[in-house]
């Protein structure tokens, strides 16, 4: 049996191959296609039922969108308010400009704790800054405690989804990973047995490792609160047993008021996992003597976010609450899964977030990894107009690339420049139609269809035929008809 992650994937956008290249490999993997399709169908069906029962769903979306937009418009104010409240409650707030900065701050805090081991609650932000390999190299053993993250860590795999990171792996593959890495030769693929194996593995970590790292779903400025929603209770364990807790949080995650959680929590679980409420919601503010971690740090991460904030159309990207509804509904993600996106943030939100976090210097293929069908915008609980941002980023990519000398003869660029000249005048358009008819005659079979085209056209004809050009265009027919006096 080939195990789940025999194909190495790169989720560092600086080095990942372009989307179409990885996507093609993924499309050839029947196991992955089946796993992804099945998993998102299950979530989508559950979500659909719960959205319908909320008669105020659209109002909730509007409210959430307004809250997030307001928070971003006043981000500086709310972050400072959060810092002040959190500090007053006994927490420590650190500001990290970029990934390297955040990694150093976290390592420094772990050194202060004399930590050689750390347990983690699932956090995509830590994956964004590639924290685990950094800490391992610095001699700190990192243990993931979220079931999906354990599967990936033990199986040396990469996340393919932001809520269900191991969604591309099925339970027989999980069995193989657990049996191999935990030495459990008689393990079956019964979910109960698999969960028990993870539970036994985890229990010992919870009881012996005194330092934890988390992300956060929300920060609340008004109260200095950090909020984490989860399904398994591993987060609750990490938030109660360890002596020290470090929460790594993107600066965009702040909400103005405690009351705003009411709107967000109704939307988040329904959108993310298709549940009315997630099983565990943990809220904590600073330190409570005698209860939970006694040393608490929040590391606020910028890492490209403030440059997104500065741009009008793109700013809405930061409204995201990481529910993954966009990837669950995306017809592209459904076919490729998450690894093709070459980032820890896959799917439609990843296609707009990743290149922006990379300052548009990497991942330029991602804004094109969409058919612009608009399903993502339709489901987004905070109404991010993802197609609009995709188009904005595409135009930025074009503006970058068209200055490059090598692109001058690139067929797509050449074609679109010529098309623009053609469409500029009726004369040009009609001449191009005549030339096209002559040019394509050579490729058109007796049945009137084109089965094979060279060059860029081959990208079409590799899977589709194309009907040859009809003898008469519509405008010629119209002119002829007018002449005949109809």
């Amino acid at each position, binding site marked *: 049996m080939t195990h789940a992650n025999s194909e190495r994937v790169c989720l560092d956008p600086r080095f990942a191959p372009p*989307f*179409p290249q990885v*996507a*093609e490999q993924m*499309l050839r993997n029947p196991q992955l296609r089946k796993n992804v399709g099945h998993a998102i169908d299950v979530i989508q069906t559950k979500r659909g039922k719960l959205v319908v029962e909320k008669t105020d769903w659209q109002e909730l979306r509007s409210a959430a969108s307004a809250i997030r937009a307001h928070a971003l418009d006043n981000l500086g104010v709310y972050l400072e308010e959060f810092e002040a409240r959190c500090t007053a409650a006994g927490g420590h707030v650190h500001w990290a400009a970029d990934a390297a900065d955040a990694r150093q701050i976290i390592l420094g805090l772990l050194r202060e704790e004399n930590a050689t081991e750390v347990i983690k609650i699932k956090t995509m932000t830590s994956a964004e800054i590639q924290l685990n390999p950094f800490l391992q190299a610095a001699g700190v053993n990192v243990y993931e405690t979220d079931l999906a993250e354990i599967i990936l860590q033990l199986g040396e795999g990469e996340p393919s989804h932001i809520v269900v990171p191991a969604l591309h792996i099925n339970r027989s593959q999980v069995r193989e990973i657990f049996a191999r890495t935990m030495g459990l030769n008689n393990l079956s693929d019964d979910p109960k047995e698999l969960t028990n194996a993870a539970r036994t593995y985890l229990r010992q970590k919870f009881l012996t490792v005194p330092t934890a790292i988390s992300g956060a779903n929300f920060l609340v400025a008004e109260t200095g609160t950090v909020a984490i929603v989860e399904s398994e209770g591993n987060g609750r364990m990490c938030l109660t047993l360890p002596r020290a807790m470090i929460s790594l949080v993107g600066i965009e995650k702040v909400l103005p008021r405690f009351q705003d959680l009411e709107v967000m929590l109704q939307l988040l679980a329904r959108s993310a996992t298709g549940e009315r409420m997630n099983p565990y919601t943990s809220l904590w503010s600073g330190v409570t003597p005698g209860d939970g971690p006694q040393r608490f740090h929040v590391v606020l991460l910028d890492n490209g976010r403030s440059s997104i904030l500065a741009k009008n159309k793109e700013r809405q990207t930061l409204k995201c609450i990481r529910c993954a509804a966009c990837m669950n509904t995306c*017809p*592209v993600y*459904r*076919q*490729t899964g998450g690894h093709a996106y070459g980032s820890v943030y896959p799917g439609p939100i990843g296609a707009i977030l990743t290149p922006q976090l990379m300052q548009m210097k990497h991942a330029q293929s991602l804004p*094109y*990894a*969409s*058919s*612009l*069908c*608009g*399903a993502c*915008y*339709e489901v987004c609980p905070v109404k991010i107009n993802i197609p*609009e941002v995709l*188009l904005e*980023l*595409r*135009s*930025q*990519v*074009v503006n970058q690339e068209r200055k490059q000398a090598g692109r001058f003869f690139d067929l*797509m660029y050449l074609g*679109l*420049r010529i*098309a*623009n000249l*053609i*469409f*500029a*005048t*009726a004369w040009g*358009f009609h001449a191009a139609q005549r030339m*096209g008819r002559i040019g394509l005659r050579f490729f058109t079979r007796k049945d009137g*269809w084109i089965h094979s085209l060279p060059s*860029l056209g081959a*990208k*079409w004809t*590799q*899977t*589709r*035929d*194309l*009907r040859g*050009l*009809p003898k*008469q*265009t*519509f*405008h*010629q*027919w*119209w*002119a002829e008809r007018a002449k005949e006096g109809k």
Partner: protein
Amino acid sequence: MRTSLFITCYNDTLFPETGRAVVRLLERLGVTLDFHPRQTCCGQMHANTGFRGEAFSQAKRFVRLYQDAETVVIPSSSCVAMIRDQYPGLFEELGNESLRKDFAALVPRVYELSEFLIDKLGIEDVGATFTHRVVYHASCHGVRALQLGERPYKLMARVRGLDLATLPNVDRCCGFGGTFSVKNAEVSSAMMTAKLQDVLATKAEYCTALDNSCLMHLGGAMHREYAGMKTIHLAQILASTEADSEDNRMEAAL
């Protein structure tokens, strides 16, 4: 009622039968038609690929050609969506005040074909006969951008002889996506295969839509695979009548 046709670049070049069907249909319903011979393209291909300046020139061209039209009918959902959703941004960024003003005055008079029939003419029964089993592909722009909703179904319900199949996952993209079909040809094809599985399972004879771009993609695959199903723009179904000669019906089905 007087209306101007914007037939769009690819319908003019590749699918003139759709334009002819629109003419036959609307004239039968008593509409007087204009066709501006200088029309070319709405700019969607450029806009969706990121060529904003080029898209702007075409958008401006559209407004200047049609600003005096009483109404404009376009038998292509995605081109209408381009005009409604993307022109405002292009004009905001690259246009001047007069262009923005003329566009704002024009855009409420721009109709997709099914909108024009139902909303403007108030007609559901266009007097068509089409005795075939048909499956309707709703198309992303029709469903989400234009929110056509029940309009096409109302029109099809009144076509005599038409046996409408139910399509599962009707709002899911077919994978065409304009230049996406070439830039991401493999993913586009995988999406197409998934859509075709649903479409072919209906055992319909014709797959119809209000957008020939999706149909070019799906129809191209059907032809390649000898799938035994053809694609046909809804205008051609609505134009078909009992009184039509067999020739005309054959043309409608081309």
